[in-house]
């Protein structure tokens, strides 16, 4: 044993790969249920009247968003960090007992937090702030998990062999810092147990309850500064980190322009934080902030497309790989969807467009072409790439991967097209006046008209979920597929029929 050559240690990666898949299934399954509940409201009672409180739309909705953001995506970020981090810094987790311990602690605390979140959201314990629904005890646990993630990042960097940090590591560092800052400021809250009754008697009440430090408009401002940038530092920055590693590695091509990747990094860091105001157009926050939000959202196209074009051009001269490898297909489609949603977002942030789009399903559509098309595809591609290296076996089935790709692509297309139509239809109907200047439609008219689109959206989501089950099965079977040699793992991943 003494003389065994040093190897990368993927123990923690494996653990987080497991939660990526498990929580992905949970989040997407709930999403599909929600979609069909809007099309067929009877499904709110799918487990009977007695459990209606726990199966109705409003109770499940925060579970869906949080399972996808903090379950699926965050697990994917952690899994890839513990993989990419070691490799580009050329240092193994096995070299430091402390980092190994912290990594495992990180995982188990994360699991405990996830369980607490699921229980509390089912019970209706929520602060109501989107993607920050957790009450203060869970917030504290999340901060601890996050600090452990930071210790792992800077610990590995501390013992690295490679002097410079690869661009992906930049993005992981930014993820860590960005979320830390946003989460702390948005979740400033006062637990209500700190108050005392004027006559000094015992008050009682739920010990976990708290209220926000900020009121009304200020609270909205901080929430959407957070909400928008949680998307930035959860759904954009770390996913860019992944594609900058996995696409060059899988295709064997160097990044088209490393310098452009550095420039886009700083551009994205500076610009993204300003754009939060576009969630609050025509609200009661000061006008200049709304305008800033609009303008910066449009400028944000530059660094986003800088990264996206850089990824696509990385394939220059090697486009036959897109046809040959389903794994490359996933990543190329992901960067295409990235370009697409970073163009769609700024369009929605223009004030006159936002007047129609805000509060409608078009926004829901936008989120989903980003998350299903860009985040989901990239994380699945990352797991597909890591699986053979982590398990030292070839990917179980290439044809299953290809079918999954097409089924899910169809699902995403059905999803966003139906939501575009639904959103614009509803937005236009809300504002329509008749010849006498009265409102042309009652609110319920604008709901019933959406039924066909809600159904199509549900089908789209279902197709994506089916694809995700195929993905989970493929990864599961990979664990017992044909073992491969180290030499087969240099670039393109080995795949079985």
């Amino acid at each position: 044993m003494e003389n065994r050559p040093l190897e990368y240690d993927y123990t923690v990666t494996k653990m987080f790969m497991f939660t990526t898949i498990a929580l992905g299934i949970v989040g997407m399954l709930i999403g599909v249920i929600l979609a069909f509940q809007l099309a067929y409201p009877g499904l709110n009672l799918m487990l009977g009247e007695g459990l209606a409180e726990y199966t109705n739309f409003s109770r499940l909705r925060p579970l869906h968003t949080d399972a996808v953001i903090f379950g699926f995506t965050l697990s994917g970020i952690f899994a890839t960090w513990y993989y990419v981090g070691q490799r580009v810094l050329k240092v193994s987790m096995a070299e430091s007992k402390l980092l190994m311990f912290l990594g495992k602690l990180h995982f188990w605390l994360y699991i405990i937090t996830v369980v607490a979140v699921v229980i509390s959201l089912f019970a209706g314990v929520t602060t109501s702030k989107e993607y920050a629904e957790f009450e203060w005890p869970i917030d504290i646990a999340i901060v601890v998990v996050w600090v452990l993630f930071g210790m792992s990042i800077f610990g590995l960097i501390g013992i690295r062999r490679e002097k410079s940090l690869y661009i992906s590591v930049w993005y992981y560092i930014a993820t860590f810092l960005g979320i830390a800052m946003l989460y702390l400021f948005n979740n400033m809250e006062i637990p209500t147990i700190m108050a005392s009754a004027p006559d000094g008697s015992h008050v009682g009440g739920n010990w976990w309850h708290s209220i926000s430090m900020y009121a009304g408009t200020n609270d909205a401002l901080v929430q959407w500064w957070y909400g928008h940038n949680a998307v930035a530092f959860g759904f954009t920055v770390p996913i860019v980190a992944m594609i900058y590693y996995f696409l060059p590695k899988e295709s064997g091509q160097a990044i088209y322009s490393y310098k452009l990747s550095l420039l886009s990094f700083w551009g994205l860091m500076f610009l993204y934080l300003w754009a939060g105001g576009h969630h609050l157009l025509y609200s009661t926050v000061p006008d200049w902030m709304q305008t800033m939000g609009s303008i910066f959202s449009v400028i944000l196209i530059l660094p986003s497309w800088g990264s996206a074009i850089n990824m696509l051009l990385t394939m220059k001269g090697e486009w036959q790989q897109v046809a040959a490898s389903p794994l490359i297909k996933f990543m190329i489609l992901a960067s295409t969807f990235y370009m697409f949603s970073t163009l769609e977002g700024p369009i929605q942030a223009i004030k006159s467009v936002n007047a129609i789009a805000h509060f409608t399903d078009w926004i829901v559509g936008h989120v989903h072409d980003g998350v299903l098309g860009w985040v989901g595809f990239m994380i699945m591609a990352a797991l597909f790439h890591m699986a053979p290296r982590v398990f030292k076996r070839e990917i179980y089935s290439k044809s299953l991967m290809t079918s999954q790709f097409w089924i899910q692509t169809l699902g995403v297309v059905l999803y966003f097209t139906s939501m575009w139509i639904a959103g614009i239809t509803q937005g236009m109907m809300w504002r329509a006046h008749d010849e006498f200047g009265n409102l042309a439609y009652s609110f319920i008219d604008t709901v019933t008209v959406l039924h066909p689109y809600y159904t199509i959206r549900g089908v789209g989501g279902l197709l994506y979920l089916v694809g995700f089950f195929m993905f989970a099965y493929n990864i599961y079977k990979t664990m017992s597929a044909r073992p491969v040699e180290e030499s087969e793992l240099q670039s393109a991943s080995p795949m079985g029929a």
Partner: protein
Amino acid sequence: MDIAQLQAYGYFALTVFLVIGLYGYIYHLYSKRKNSDGVDYEEYSNMALHDDIDDTPVASISDDKKK
């Protein structure tokens, strides 16, 4: 001077500083093919392509210590 004025001046000064920083960075990146360590920026892509634990680092930490 009230807080709004401070905010405006601070905002302006910082923006000018960052614009100069950004253009300085672009100039730096594209005027010099190699950085101060003599490494071509585009070489850094190899950190991903040659990332086995026994591959030679693009620029090794231990090189620094030898100097």
